[in-house]
């Protein structure tokens, strides 16, 4: 190929300037045009109220209510089902960036707590305290506690979630054991102990009495037992109280169940196929069952139908509390919403109406927090899955005993610390061969003291919490 001579090269160079800008100009025009098209063609939200929920069951219950509402009301309601992590991320992003989210957001306890980290005026939910107080809603008081931050309520409670023990009635009754004699945890283990005499091929007990272990999967169980005993991880000001004597006593007792020659608990992890299999095999006789878990058992372990029954939690001391609480959901109104009154009316329709409460129980086994509906005969209906027990009535009878709990954004951290203290205490018990609760309480207190210091250091860093102490007025007037 012939090389162009210098003159030809120069001519080509001189001719180029006009064409040289074609490329950049085309790119810029395309970029500009696509930006204009994109900006002029935004994704339009359908008009009306937008409601986000994370539970399929809730969504199924809400659809007919929303459809009925839409027949007679404007603006209309649009329901969206999101996975919990997606809902949580979208909600927090909207709250932090102060952009638009759904007007009504249904959220569970731990996710809601994340909205309470900053100053109160930056919480993305509308403060409902004055409305709730003014309307004197007949709601179980303890149900408000997880949605309360520094004395202000940011959500309408969906549930109560009392906890009972679900136990293998077939095994217990075949052994001729009468569970009505059980009042305390000591009674529980003493009465059921004969079930541990049966051995498997390895020579180990075929049945352990309670589903509990020192793994994070059982973390919620540790918290519910602490609450049942009258302990707590945080006070009403949001300050950590991990080092309470009651908490140490509970931890020491749990370890006494878990270690040594008189071990009575085994690990059947919640929400897992392996855990369900172990329940079915009877490796654990009893497990902690809040009302919502009845539904999980019903659909995930249908083979248990007619083999299980419920009993109130054994108390820590005679005359003590026979239940606790596990889980929780609220409905909050986003601060970015404009028609707060309309949303409040729909929120009450969704959560506090009789037919919604009816659906919640019949389809989800969950009892409503509205006390005036507790006389409804549906709660007295025998449940064949639970061997014909009137399960709803059993939970309602315990609902007023459900403990109050705070919902700190540091709750997960505190639970992790308590869990780690529990594991360290198990190791200490195994090392020192001290298996009695009394012998372990001192070490439990020491470990919880260290955990308390770590959580307190983290909470103390939060300049927003420190700047907003709880006012006495708010504390006294909170329902």
């Amino acid at each position, binding site marked *: 190929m012939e090389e162009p001579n210098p003159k030809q090269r120069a001519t080509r160079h001189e001719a180029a300037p006009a064409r040289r800008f074609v490329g950049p*100009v085309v790119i810029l025009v395309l970029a500009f045009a696509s930006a204009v098209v994109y900006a002029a063609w935004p994704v339009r939200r359908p008009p009306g109220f937008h409601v986000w929920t994370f539970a399929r069951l809730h969504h199924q219950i809400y659809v007919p209510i929303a459809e009925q509402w839409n027949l007679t009301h404007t603006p209309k309601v649009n329901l969206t089902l999101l996975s919990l992590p997606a809902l949580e991320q979208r909600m927090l992003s909207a709250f932090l960036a102060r952009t638009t989210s759904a007007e009504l957001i249904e959220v569970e306890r731990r996710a809601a707590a994340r909205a309470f*980290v900053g*100053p109160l005026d930056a919480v993305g939910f509308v403060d409902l305290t004055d409305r709730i107080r003014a309307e004197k809603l007949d709601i179980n008081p303890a149900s408000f506690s997880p949605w309360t931050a520094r004395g202000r309520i940011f959500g309408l409670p969906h549930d109560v979630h009392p906890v009972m023990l679900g136990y293998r009635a077939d095994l217990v009754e075949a052994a001729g054991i009468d569970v009505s004699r059980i009042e305390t945890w000591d009674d529980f283990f003493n009465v059921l102990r004969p079930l541990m005499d049966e051995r498997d091929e390895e020579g180990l007990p075929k049945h352990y009495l309670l589903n509990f272990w020192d793994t*994070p999967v059982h973390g919620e169980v540790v918290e519910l037992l602490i609450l049942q005993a009258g302990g707590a991880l945080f006070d009403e000001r949001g300050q950590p109280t991990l080092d309470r004597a009651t908490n140490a006593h509970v931890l020491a007792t749990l370890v006494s169940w878990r270690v040594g020659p008189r071990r009575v608990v085994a690990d059947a992890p919640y929400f897992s196929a392996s855990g369900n299999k172990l329940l079915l095999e009877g490796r654990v006789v009893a497990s902690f069952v809040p009302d919502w878990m009845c539904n999980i058992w019903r659909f995930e372990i249908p083979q248990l139908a007619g083999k299980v029954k419920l009993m109130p939690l054994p108390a820590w001391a005679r005359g003590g509390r026979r239940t606790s609480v596990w889980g929780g959901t609220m409905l909050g109104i986003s601060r970015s919403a404009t028609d707060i009154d309309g949303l409040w009316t729909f929120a009450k329709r969704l959560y506090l109406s009789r037919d919604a409460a009816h659906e919640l129980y019949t389809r989800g086994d969950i009892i409503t927090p509205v006390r005036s509906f507790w006389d409804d005969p549906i709660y007295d209906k025998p449940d064949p899955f639970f061997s014909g027990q009137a399960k709803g009535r059993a939970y309602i009878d315990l609902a007023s005993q459900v403990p109050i709990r705070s919902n700190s954004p540091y709750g997960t951290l505190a639970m992790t610390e308590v869990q780690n203290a529990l594991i360290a205490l198990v190791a200490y018990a195994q090392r020192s061969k001290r298996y009695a609760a009394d012998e372990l309480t001192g070490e439990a207190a020491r470990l919880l003291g260290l955990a308390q210091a770590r959580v307190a250091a983290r909470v103390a860093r939060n*300049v*927003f919490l420190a700047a907003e102490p709880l006012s006495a007025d708010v504390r006294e007037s909170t329902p």
Partner: protein
Amino acid sequence: MRAAPGVSNSRAAWLLLAPFLVIFAVFYAYPLVRSVLLAFQQTFGPGSSRFVGLGNFRFLLSDSLFWTALWNTIVFTCGSVFIQLPLALGLALLLNRPRVRGRALFRTILFAPALVGVVFVAMMFGVIFEKRTGLLNLFLHQMFGWNLDFPWLETYVMPALILAALWQYVGFNMVYFLAALQNVPAELLEAARIDGAGSWKRFLHVVLPAIRPVGAFVVLLSIIGSFQLFELPYIMLNSTAGAENRGLTVVMYLYQTGFQIGDLGYASTIAWVLAILLIGCAAAMRALWTTEAES
């Protein structure tokens, strides 16, 4: 005559670069600068920010959780570098032998796990490592009378994670080594053989120096990947850090701090410390290679 086209060239270059520069400035440089600022703040969204000076960094120094996370990450990284990579090299050496039958099939089988998503691998190994019902304990119990309640996901979290990562990435790293081995000059190996060098000496003095650049690259990639470990423990341990935080890694702690506790300022501090550590690692390795290359 020559100056004008030069100036035009320069303008054209800037015009062509402009879209990239704008995108880089908006989506990379600005967030990077903001994240530096964030490391010195406590914040709850742009509306609620307080400058805390070096408070976040001071807290990090005394934060036992951070040090636990760092230690766990280092242990996992060591597992990746000192167990996974030698194994990958061994497999590559084996499958580089022309006499081995079905080499292509073995390569495909070994590489296949790398095509599977981490989330799937984590879920699968979460089930495999279960006590009592898990495949591993059941298999070992059948073969050797192993304890069915062996707590892989409680007490032995790091070995479990290293095993899961080994399964997924050993074939991936093997492919790098295989490519490097195929580029080792055959005449050098032949010359060494004629000079009487045994297979070990040929490996040590011919193969290893020849694949060193690729090896160094794989080591660096492995270190960076290991320091970014998140999905595997997060899913295998059911969104927790495991018993006694045995599965807590630096990135997992960063996520917990930023998105579960909502302390984005402190999370940013952790991210920058991690970045500095990785930059330090890369710089140290580069210095090492340069020195070795010069010598």
